[in-house]
């Protein structure tokens, strides 16, 4: 590579790197956060599917094991109600975990910034 070519190339590479660094904080609070939140939502949805919450809720008045008599229906309703409550609680737990993780994502750079400043500055 000839000398002027090399200089131009070096300049271009450096500019791109600087651009990368400048864009990084903006990315963290925009695109990055959206993608992270998307992953949390996906995780929560697959948890919902694995727990079968919507299936239990939809069938709350449907008798279990084909027991169509009155007693069967009554017992089924209460068993299903308990299932819906327990599974619902589990889902709420995962929802809270997700929300906390999203909050951590948002707070992390600020936290590190404060901690670093604390280390560097004489307080």
């Amino acid at each position, binding site marked *: *590579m000839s000398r002027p*070519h090399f200089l*131009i*190339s070096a300049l*271009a*590479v450096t500019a*791109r*790197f600087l651009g*990368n*660094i400048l864009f*990084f904080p903006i*990315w*963290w609070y925009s695109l*990055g956060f959206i*993608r992270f939140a998307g992953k949390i939502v996906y995780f929560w949805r697959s948890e919902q*599917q*694995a727990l*079968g919450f919507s*299936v*239990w809720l*939809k*069938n709350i008045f*449907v*008798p*279990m*094991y*084909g027991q169509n008599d009155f007693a069967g229906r009554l017992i089924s309703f209460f068993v299903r109600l308990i299932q819906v409550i327990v599974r619902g609680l589990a889902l709420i737990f995962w929802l809270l975990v997700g929300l906390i993780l999203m909050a951590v994502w948002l707070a*992390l*750079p600020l936290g*590190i910034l404060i*901690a*670093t400043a*604390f*280390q*560097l500055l004489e307080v």
Partner: protein
Amino acid sequence: MDKAPVLEFENNEERGRGAWWQGRFLYWQKTLSRSAIALNKLQRRVDHVLDILVFIGALVGVLSLLTWLLLSQEILLANPLKILFFWENKHPLVLVFLLSTWLDLFLLYRRSEASVASRKINHRHFRGGAKGKPIHYNVAGACNQEMNDVLSSAFLIAAKLKQPEVSVMHFFRALLTSPQIQNVFVRLGVNATALLKKLERHLSGPQAQNRRPEFSEALREILLAAGADAIARRQDSLEPLNALSFCYHQDTVLAEILYDLEVDADKLDNVCEWFHINRQLLSRYHAYRQSAGLKPGGGMDRAYTAIATPTLDHFSHDLTAAAKYGRLELCVGRSAEINSIFEIMESGQAGVLLVGASGTGKNVVINGIAQLMVEERVPKFLQDKRLVEIDVSRLVSGGAASEAEARLLACINEASRAGNIILHIANIENLVGISAGGEGLDLSEVLAESLSRRIIFCLSTIGTDNYSRVLEKTALGEVMTTVGIKEPGTNQAIQMLESKVAGLENKYRIFITYSAIEEAVLMSSRYLHDKFLPEKAVSLLQAAVIIAAKANRRNPQNRTCTKEHVAAAISEMTGIPAQKITEDESHKLLSLENDIHQRMVGQEEAVNAVAASLRRARAEMKDAKRPIASFLFLGPTGVGKTELAKTVSQVYFGDENYMVRLDMSEYQSVDSIRKMIGDIDGSLGYLTEAVRKKPFSLILLDEIEKAHPDILNLFLQLLDDGRLTDGQGRTISFTESIIIATSNIGALYIQEQIKAGTDTALIRQELIDNQLNKVMRPELINRFDGIIVFKPLSTDNIFQIATLMLKGIKKRLAEKGLDLKADREGVKLLAKAGYDPKFGARPLRRLLQEKVEDKIANKILAGELKRRDTVVIDAKANISVLKGREL
């Protein structure tokens, strides 16, 4: 993926050459220059270095924190909560960790961006018309890194050679630098050096000075088609593999070069498809494992509304559970059949019957449905359901028919009450005919009744022959809707086989070339007539792989299964010498006449005609739909007609036992057709059964003129189409057989004319015109490849035959440790005594038996002949014994 997209190109003023496809205008815009390529390369190197540096920085941070934790463990042990507020401790190591966390976040950012950047194609742009989406699509933006490298490389090749355009040839040369494409050619067994050498000659043309080469129009078209292909396959990006086969179709010179290296369009397409199939299988497997986790493995549905089915569970296997745990083989290339099954089910039909010959993959289709049910990629009414296969043998075993009926009813009842069960009954014909007796229903009628009441849903399979024989007219046959599972075509079968190669390669630790796969499909469809694709090709390939693995047991580095191994496997399975024509065999074919004359004396014309026919067949010049060769041998008795047939069997098939001999005098009545081809009651035909078992054989029809005319009509079809339908309705192929018919018609005429010195061509014509046509229809006479007239034997011939026969006696004596010496004059005397112009060489055989063999036998019994003695036939044809040396 069935067919590559076909684009119609047009020129757009703004975007240049492009094509409309799926509501978008695809075009190609990419500016390349040497400096841009160099900059890009530098950029990637810098990025790589940066990534490594950031990673090291992050690692140093973690190590710093760990060191600090070790150093301050006393304080931390006193107050463990302090660990949460480690950052409040002012320490250089903590500072290093905190600074490194910035690098961690930066690394996360770079990884995330890189992963998004690798997904170049946004498939949402191509779904459902053009609403709100940009109408123009630049395919250049869809290329992945490997493709971009190939494009840069093609540009640099053209620029270096000062070419005005980057041609298809430059691009193809660059493609060969891609590891993906190199793998394709390794699978094809192409010699890379030979290919490069041939390509180099076509890379440069007239040079252009100081110009930056532009992409040629043909190349742009290839790239656009490749882009459409990548989109149609729902890939993340455009890869070199997408472009490969379009290059072949676009550039005729390139096609010729590849053709010289034994690569044609089908081969290239099939290998590319193989790589795509492997990728799809892998991604499907990942998605499958994810969704299989959600499918219940037991008998219950997800909502717990189903009812336990103890009786059904006892008499069945749960296919969805088997699919969930990955125990069923993957189904490839049968989506059309599966979709039509779903359509029938959705239309409210209660039963679907898959009809197809055994080996076409009926059970694989059922497995495919079970897998789709696990993934829940099925119509709504099939979601959250189980596919359960009733084991008919278990259902009927150990009990009377009435008990089997009760069991079946209990199973149907449970399935209907549970509500989440789809039944499957393999080989449903087994249910027909099992009845409790009297006027009761048989099992198939019980099932038919439940199906017609729509209380259950049932899938089932049956072989084509059994369907028409057993089921078609029954109540069950009428209530079920049939779906034909056809035997796949060659390319489809090759692709089905390709999907199984990875498993075979892993199991036997062997590399399978494309040629082996192709040969397995071609050879099995050619030689294994009573089985069907793809199963017969799969079992053939499996046999070939085992042969190859055994052959290379001592050399694990070089374990490759090639088409020669497939040929060896087919040879082992059928006894057919199907190995590629090697040097030795070519030599054997060229010297066929000499080999035949080792056993045959005289009859040069007949031998030459037969040998020429066989050479045509072996070099695969023959019509594939007719027998290898068919001859009508005419001539008096004892002139060598049968002997020539035996010799051909020995020389061509390697053994006299490959000859099926039919004495046509035994087929003089109409009824004898049954004896020959069998009948519907199940008795097997002598001819059809022999050829079905050994398709590669010589069929000798001795004295054909004596057969009943109706039998001769059978041979009309056999000689023309190379097949015959037997009594059971099976088609028996005669395409690998040699048919030889012999006849004594006009024997006297031949003798007289030969004596008078008439040309054999004239004799033959006279025989055809005036003698043969009295017993055979002209169309049958015309269907023989050759009508060969055997001349009566001369005294000289008889002498040679006597010598040959004595050689045979000598060989038999050698086994007893005895020798035979014959004086030439003595042999002449014997030949003269044994010669009878009417009966040819036959009296000679009797004479030798009387005068030589009987006498030797007497001497052996009398103890006059012992080991190492020599039997001498002197000039007067007398037999004496020359004593051997004593030990």
